[in-house]
């Protein structure tokens, strides 16, 4: 059976891998962006607010979305863990939080 310590370390590693890969993607995108635009003046920074597609900034956005998705993944892992050890109170709690997270991702005001 899964122990709580084992689970903590599994979620810890999943979080670490997710966060690092998001950071790498963002760093690559940011690096390309700086290489292309680094010497321009700062006042131009607001122009790229997401309306026009830009490869480097698209990469950054992808990394950011991955970072947000990792938050749902960790709650999903907790749901799986509590269901596996038959702690239904806590699997219900994590299911509720996961539902709110997913709902809010697709919810548009």
């Amino acid at each position: 059976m899964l122990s709580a310590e084992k689970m903590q370390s599994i979620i810890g590693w999943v979080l670490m891998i997710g966060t690092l890969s998001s950071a790498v993607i963002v760093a690559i995108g940011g690096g390309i962006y700086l290489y292309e635009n680094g010497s321009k003046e700062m006042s131009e920074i607001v122009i790229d607010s997401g309306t026009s597609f830009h490869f480097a900034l698209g990469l950054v956005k992808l990394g950011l979305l991955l970072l947000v998705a990792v938050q749902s993944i960790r709650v999903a892992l907790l749901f799986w863990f509590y269901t596996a050890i038959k702690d239904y109170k806590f699997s219900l709690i994590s299911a509720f939080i996961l539902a709110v997270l997913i709902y809010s991702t697709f919810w548009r005001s």
Partner: protein
Amino acid sequence: MRKSRARTRARSRLREKLSAFALLAITAIHCYSIQNYRKITLTILTFSLLLVAFSFVAGLLGALTGLGGGIVVIPVLVLLFHVNIHYAMGASLISVIATSSGTASAYMREGYTNLRIGLFLEIAAVIGALIGALLVAYMSKLFLTTLFSFILFFSAYLTLKRREAEEKYESSHPWAKALQLDGSYPAQSGKTNYQVQNVPWAFSLMGIAGILSGLLGIGSGALKVLAMDQALRLPYKVATTTSNFMIGITAAVSAGVYFSNGYIIPSLVFPVLIGVLMGSFTGAKVLSRMNTPVLRLIFSIAICFVGLQMLANVIFGAN
């Protein structure tokens, strides 16, 4: 002998950190004066590098206090670089998620985080945030901001006042027993068990934290740490690390809205993310070696700073 050597080493490390802080402060003042008086514009490269440096501090502070990186990121972007408050809030949201992700894995593997408490209190935070978002049209933001800033000052006082080493509890709250919230953590003297008190009180505080963060967009981290420190009577490091675990999830709830409103600007956010992550990794490494009273002091100064920032917003109308 070895102990005193370790202490001198820790002291010199602290000195290094303090001088880094001073250096950053000087750069900040310098940039501010450049921006205001000489009108020399920064290049994107310089701007990004400066932002990485400031975000490093944000991540470090966020990792140690459980507050997330927003308390540094927002004022730096708005006051120093004159970025629109909405874009600054978007960057701050990402910095909170980054701090939480950067620290949570380390804190969980080291056994600080109490996942059950985090999850249980997260229900109240999430429901509160939804209520807050609904109430936003009916509440006076001015009054709330003023009230909340005074709550923060009072909390700083409460945080400094608590002497957890002298507290002893025979048993835990019945809810804590039913939900098995008690746990243990790696204290400096070895693995230590703790008993959880006043669960309903913490749950309501967490709901209020959620409502406030839904209404004002800030401050949920401060009340999370407080609810766990003052109501649940958790060891301080457990409170801050569990708050660190939770704030990423709470912030991710609002991320969808921020993305669709266009508040998250990639070119502004990437230096923040990288700096904050490096800072929070560093903070997570340092935490186990830090004394609780020092952490309490840092936290209190930080929330007083947030309180002052909010009061300044009310007085000067920065919102």
